[in-house]
């Protein structure tokens, strides 16, 4: 059986010990070949990544890709079957790795018999916030999460959205150096989502490292510097968001299913179809009339033609489609 090494102990088995470098210890998150299986199903397969201090990173992928397993592993809730990692310079799973970490779980539940302030005081004590600083720290977290007037309310009486705000307040207690947010806006209204974006901006300004696991691609697009895509437990892509999205495209909206007309645009690059829309990549504006003519010639009824940039959703779907094709 492969045993997980959760610390920087040298590897066994004939090879010379491979010490984890000082650079890895300086990273906010450093993972090497983390794997995890539940029975026959592999949740993570040899995931390696580095996140530098102060980066705001989006973690994307379809349901079951292993995102939440990875986040829980970084928090120390789930043990890897193999691989090694450092979180804020401390070996994965040790309390030291959680000392300056804030975590909002996907399933945010707090003691329903406590009130909001009591939950925060409990976490402030566990976070080792000095007794004298606790009241101020609790007030700061309440204000950041938009719960300033909810302190005396019992958790049981809070709506789901307010409970998620409480989760954010808990995560933000004590100025964490690393913030792990697992679907932080799943229960929030548009105002709440905007508040979370501002919070992330504020964290970025303060130099806090943020790992944002979200299906809300618009949030990731607006907030993150870098994106890591997981699929079937593997890192499918990892790169700066700007490099991904900095591509001009032409969007052509048709009447009816667009996929049928993709072959007619074979000469214009890798054209993709989503519903009634065709996306033609990196096209010079002078060629737009030719694209329209080709489509009309093929019998398509063109509703609109507009230049734009590739969206994160398009990029993600393209990556996942390629991954599926490769697997097939």
């Amino acid at each position, binding site marked *: 059986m492969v045993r997980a090494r959760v610390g920087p102990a040298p590897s066994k088995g004939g090879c010379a010990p491979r010490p984890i470098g000082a650079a890895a210890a300086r990273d906010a998150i450093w993972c090497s070949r983390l794997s995890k299986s539940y029975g026959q199903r592999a949740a993570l397969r040899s995931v390696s990544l580095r996140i530098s201090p102060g980066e705001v990173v989006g973690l994307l992928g379809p349901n079951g890709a292993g995102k939440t397993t990875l986040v829980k592993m970084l928090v120390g809730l789930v043990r890897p079957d193999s691989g090694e990692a450092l979180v804020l310079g401390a070996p994965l799973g040790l*309390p030291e790795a*959680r000392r300056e970490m804030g975590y909002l779980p996907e399933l945010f*539940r*707090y003691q329903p*018999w406590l009130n909001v302030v009591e939950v925060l005081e409990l976490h402030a004590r566990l976070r080792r916030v000095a007794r004298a600083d606790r009241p101020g720290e609790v007030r700061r977290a309440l204000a950041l999460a938009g719960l300033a007037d909810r302190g005396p309310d019992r958790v049981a009486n809070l709506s789901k959205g307010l409970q998620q705000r409480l989760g954010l307040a808990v995560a933000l207690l004590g100025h964490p150096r690393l913030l792990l947010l697992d679907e932080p806006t799943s229960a929030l209204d548009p105002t709440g989502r905007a508040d979370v974006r501002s919070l992330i901006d504020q964290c970025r300004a303060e130099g806090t490292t943020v790992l944002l696991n979200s299906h809300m691609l618009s949030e990731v697009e607006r907030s993150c510097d870098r994106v890591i895509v997981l699929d079937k437990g593997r890192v499918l892509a990892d790169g700066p968001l700007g490099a991904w999205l900095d591509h001009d495209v032409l969007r052509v909206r048709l009447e009816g299913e667009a996929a049928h007309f993709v072959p007619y645009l074979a000469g214009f690059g890798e054209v993709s179809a989503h519903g009634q829309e065709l996306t033609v990549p990196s096209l010079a504006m002078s060629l737009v009339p030719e694209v329209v003519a080709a489509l009309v010639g093929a019998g398509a009824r063109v509703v609109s033609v507009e230049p734009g940039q590739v969206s994160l959703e398009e990029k993600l779907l393209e990556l996942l489609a390629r991954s599926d094709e490769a697997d097939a």
Partner: protein
Amino acid sequence: MTNILIFARLTVLESARRKVLWALVGLAALIIGLSFWGFARLPAVHVFGTQLGAANSNLATAQLLGFVLFALSFVGALGMSFVAAPTIGGELESGVALSLLARPVRRSEVLLGKWLGLVVLAVAYVVIVGGAEIAAAETGTGYLVPNPVTAVALLAAQSVVLLSLALLLSSLLSPMAAGVVAVGLFGTAWVAGLVGDVGQSLHDSSVAEVGTIDHLLLPTDGLWNGVMNALDQTNLMSSFSDRLVGNPFFQTSGLTITYLAWSAAWLVAVVAATHLRFSRVEP
């Protein structure tokens, strides 16, 4: 140590906020009130037109006290089982554990804190309620319990054994199943103890061994026998013991040091097993 105390306090606070404590105290007050009324009337009871003598009155009081303490311990056992049963499983199932375990705490600190909180609750319940019941018997009838401190201490030990078992079950089963199984095992152990006592009275060694094995596997009934022994007056027992062998509410022999050591070792093993299980759980 600080984290252990934080979780212990949280456990006690939860019981108070969820009104479990008050429910236990209310039920206990009802039992104590009714039994005090009964004890106070006992000396005036006439049998076939004759008032009970001191020896018979003491015998009746000792037996009644045994019954009432058993009822109180059963209420306590039920209460502690249902408080302890969701302690780990409930928080894992609901997701409350996620944010707590993400803090710089060790799982052993979480477990020991919860265990300590439950022990404080159980011991406080037994000391207050058991002490009040013994005081009610002594005040109502004049019967002096020979070893009240030992009786209450063993009653508390019985509760601690049961809540530790419930905590172990909580790390293995769903909260509801853990509570049901804990109470079921408590009842089964008591019945098995009775069977062993009957075996002793019939001088059937194989049936008597059922009780011995039961006392080793789950020490609740063994400790209960110690409680009963501590409640009985020695001179009272010497005059009635031949007829009372096999009666689960009268014990002529106290617990041995070896058995108490076994019970302590059993407790340590169960808490260690709970830690082993809890440290491997992936919420």
